[in-house]
Each structure stands twice: as structure tokens, then as C-alpha cells.
């Protein structure tokens, strides 16, 4: 079924063009235009900071700006083959996802699952009850 009967060829072309403009315009509106200067600045600054620095300041750690320094300290203090239990706030899954990704290739488990692990890393509140271990940024690292 088409609009051929009521509309001529030119009108049909105009309607089609208008529809595509609406569709394309709505899709284009999903771009975060307000962030364009930020995107440009971010793209151009890629050579000025290390990948780790950029990650720490990026959107990935929106939920907690202290967390990247903690993970970096754990990373520096543990060998790549280690298994680490992390005690992080359970309110957001992304705490665990960031720990698993940032510390890769180390094996990372949630503290309650880490019965026989080489290290336990306690972040912020969880670190307060720890008397032993090494003090690291915003937390404590315990070798078991």
C-alpha cells in the first residue's frame, strides 16, 4: 500500500524526505551535543596523560573518585598471578566490576567468596576494622 493515489510523485518524495529528516533528526538528537567541547578536549588530550590517569578521571569512576587510587595501590602491591578478595561497598555492582577489570589478570573475588586467597583488600569503611596489613590509599591490603 502506498500514497500513490492521493499524492503525486513530487509530494511523495517530499513526504519521504520529511520522514527521513525527522527520523535522522531524532537519532541525531541523541548525541550529547553539550558535551562536544568536552569530547574534543578529551580526544586531543590523549597524549598528555597516561591511560591509567585518564581512566581514574573518567566516567567509569563516577560513583567514587577515591576508588581508582585504591585499586591502583592494590595492583602495584600484588603480583599478576595473585588471587585477591576485595571488600567493597555492596551497594553498587560496579565496585566489583571495576576491581575485577582494573586488577586483571589477577583473579578477584568478593570477600565472602575468598576463603583461600593470597590477599584481601579492604576499602574505606571495611578497612577500619582491620588491624594488620599494609595501609594503602583509602584502604588496607592484607596478605593471608
Amino acid at each position, binding site marked *: *500500500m*502506498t*500514497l*500513490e493515489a492521493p*499524492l503525486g510523485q513530487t509530494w*511523495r518524495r517530499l*513526504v*519521504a524526505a*520529511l*520522514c*527521513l529528516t*525527522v*527520523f*535522522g533528526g*531524532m*537519532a*541525531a*538528537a*541523541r*548525541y*550529547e551535543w553539550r*558535551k*562536544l567541547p*568536552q*569530547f*574534543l*578536549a*578529551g*580526544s586531543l588530550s*590523549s*597524549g598528555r596523560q597516561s*591511560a591509567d590517569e*585518564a*581512566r581514574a578521571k*573518567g*566516567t*567509569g569512576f563516577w560513583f567514587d573518585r577515591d576508588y581508582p587510587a585504591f585499586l591502583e595501590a592494590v595492583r602495584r602491591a600484588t603480583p*599478576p598471578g595473585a588471587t585477591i578478595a576485595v571488600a567493597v561497598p555492596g551497594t553498587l*555492582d*560496579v565496585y566489583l*566490576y*571495576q576491581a*575485577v*577489570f582494573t586488577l*586483571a*589478570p589477577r*583473579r*578477584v*573475588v*568478593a570477600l565472602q*567468596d575468598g576463603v583461600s586467597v593470597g590477599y584481601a583488600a579492604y576499602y574505606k569503611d571495611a578497612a577500619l576494622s582491620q588491624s594488620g596489613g599494609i595501609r594503602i590509599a583509602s584502604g588496607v591490603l592484607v596478605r593471608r
Partner: protein
Amino acid sequence: MIGVALALVATPLAGYALARPAVSSLPRSERFAWSLAVGLMVQALLVLASIGARPGADFSLALSLLTVLLLLPLLPRRAARLAAPEFLRLGPAARVLCAPAAVGVALFAVAALSEPMWTTDYLAVWGLKAKTIFLTASLPGRLFHDPAIVWSHPEYPLLVPLDLAALAAWARRWDDRALAALYPLCQAATAAAAFGFLVRRGRALGGAVAAALIGWFFPLYDPVHVGMADIPLALGFVLLCIAFLDALEADSPAVYARLAIASLFCAATKPEGALFGALAALFWLVLRPRGRSWSPPFLALLLPSVVHGVLLRWARGSLPSRDFDFTLLAPSRWAAWLGRIGETLARITSVELAAAALPLAALAIFFFATDSGLADRLLPLLGLQLAFYVLTCSLSAFGVAWLVGTSFGRIVCALVPALAVVVGARLRPRT
């Protein structure tokens, strides 16, 4: 960044070196898209071969050298390359519309490269696997069987993680921002594939419109989707669709090879890619022209994904998906499943469709205002894929609302570039 840039130049070239017999008759833009798809699969295979030969050893040099070896056969063919086929010349409107497509890709590139990849699915699924493969120079069994990371979709195919690991190997370090360059390149290839195909079929204006729609389709080409598999999958969908349309028209080994390439690329990228290949195989049986044998295209569509699935299962064992409750498929639970389907449809209608009502209405009016096109035969295939997405959401083990909210819109968006081919094909030149 230089290493990644080199990789992204070498990858399509290596792909072209291998796929040349199947793609040399195509327009340059389409050749680029096919070459990138093949190149990405080759890079993944080379990573597997390198880490398989010397697990734990740095595979950067081996990967680069093997890729350069693949490029060698291209050198004596330079003269032949210059004699590539001529296609329809672009009219002024089509030329003007090509510029927005390029601007759209550039806008996405700026957004994608502005910061290291960060989305939850990148951290928990694709990036985690890729980083682990790169840093251990191996494919550790725990990526598939560790209960601590059971949420990382161990059942997913590995093309994207292996390609990210390959890019990191070229760069000789893990740089989440530089690796993001893969995604605008996939977008560019998707637009180029749609454009090249439609130009080849005498729809230069339609090709430019399709490319512009893909370039500016920011619901898919969004920084939130960088680091995931949906953007490469959209490329696979477009390649499979245009190869399918070619198969309906022509009967040649090159067409069958392109069908097989697209099917393998889709299956190796995401599970819904394998589904799309299987549905396309079934549609071939229904739509094939009279007098044409059913078997070559059917097998080209189905065999790659079957072989890929068997090899994955052989390598890592059976890995059931925890996201789905397949017990709903048992006859005793069909009533409950029907209820879930209704709930899924209600959720999609009230949330997803409502949010996209205006563009969908515009698209519907466009279809009424234009005559049928050469790519309309894709509509039932795309529609059936969509129907399977609805059924899949109804099987969610964590509730329908969760799966619809987290995935439905994104996976549907990955089908839109293929739909842009249908739209472009309806734009006939002025007579």
C-alpha cells in the same frame, strides 16, 4: 595510539589480501567493509594461533609479523587494484549526502575517543576478557569456568575480546582509550557497506541516504556502547543482509563466500549474530528464486556458525546462559511463558515504543510514501529477528523488566543500519 592506528590500517589490508577473490568486483567502499570484517577475524585467529603456540609469551611481534606476511601478496597486484571496476557516478545530491555521513562518523569518533572505555558491560564482559587474554598471553580457563565472574557471560563468542587483545598487542600496552578507535572504524565500515551496495545496485542517492542515516544513528553509535559488541555486530548484520540480497540475484562462488564471511562474523561476535545467520538460512529456503539450488547459500549461511559453535563448545565445554530461564519452554510451563510474553510486549510497548514513537511513525509514513525497493525482502528477516528478541526477553531469569530495560533497545538498535539499507533501496532515481 600509533600502534592501534597501524593495526587499524593493517587489519582491513590483511582482510583484503585474503578475501580479494570474493570482494574484488565490489565498489571500493564495500570492499573496505568486507576487508575490515575479514581482517578482524584474521587478527582474532592470529592471536589464538600465537598464544596457542607460545602461551604466556609476548605475542605482539608474532602478530605484527604474521599480519605483514599476509600483506605481501598485495604488493605485485597494485596494477590490478588500480583497474578496479567502475560503478555508477554519484549525482550532486548523493555527493552532498556523503558529507553528513562522514561528519556523523567523525562526531562518534570524537565521543568514543574522548576517554577510556568505561561502560559496565565493557568492564564486566568484553574488556575483562580482552585484557586478561592480552596480559596473560593465553586464554585462561577461568574466563569460562570461574564462579567469581559468572556474570561475565562466559558463553559469549570471543571475536571482540580477541580483536581488542590484538589491537593492544599492536600498541604493546593496554590503553582503553586507543582501543576505542575500533568502534568508529566499524561504524564507517557499516556506512560504507550500505553505500557501496546501493551504488552498485543503481541507487546512489539511496546509498548516500543510508550512509547518512547510519552515520547519524547515535542511539547505537553512542559512547555508552563503546567497548561492547553491538557496533561490530551491526556491521555483521549489514554485510549479511547485502550478501543475502546478492545471493537472491546471482549464483557465484564469490557471493557464497561473502555469505559465509558475514555469517561467521555475526556468529563470532554475539549469540544473536548466530541467530540472524540461522534465520537468513531459513529465509533463503523460502525466498530462493525458482531453479536455484537450495544448498550452496543455505550451507554458506549455516555451516560457518555451526562450525564456530561446535569449536567453541569443544574448546571450553558447555556453558549455559544464566540470564535465561529455559524451563519456561517445557510444556508444563507454557501458560507461565505466555504470561511472560504478554508482560514483555506490554513493557516494550509502554516504555521502548513510547520513547521511540515519533521516529517510528516517521519511518512508517516513509514506507507508505515510497514504492517497494530491492531490499524489501529483508523486512521479514529483520522482523523475525525482532520477534526472537521479544521471545528472548520473555525468558529472562531476572525478570522481564530487567532484560528489556538493559538490552532490548540496544540490540534492536544494532538492526537499524540493516534497515537503513532497506530505506535507501526505496529511494529511486528521478525518472
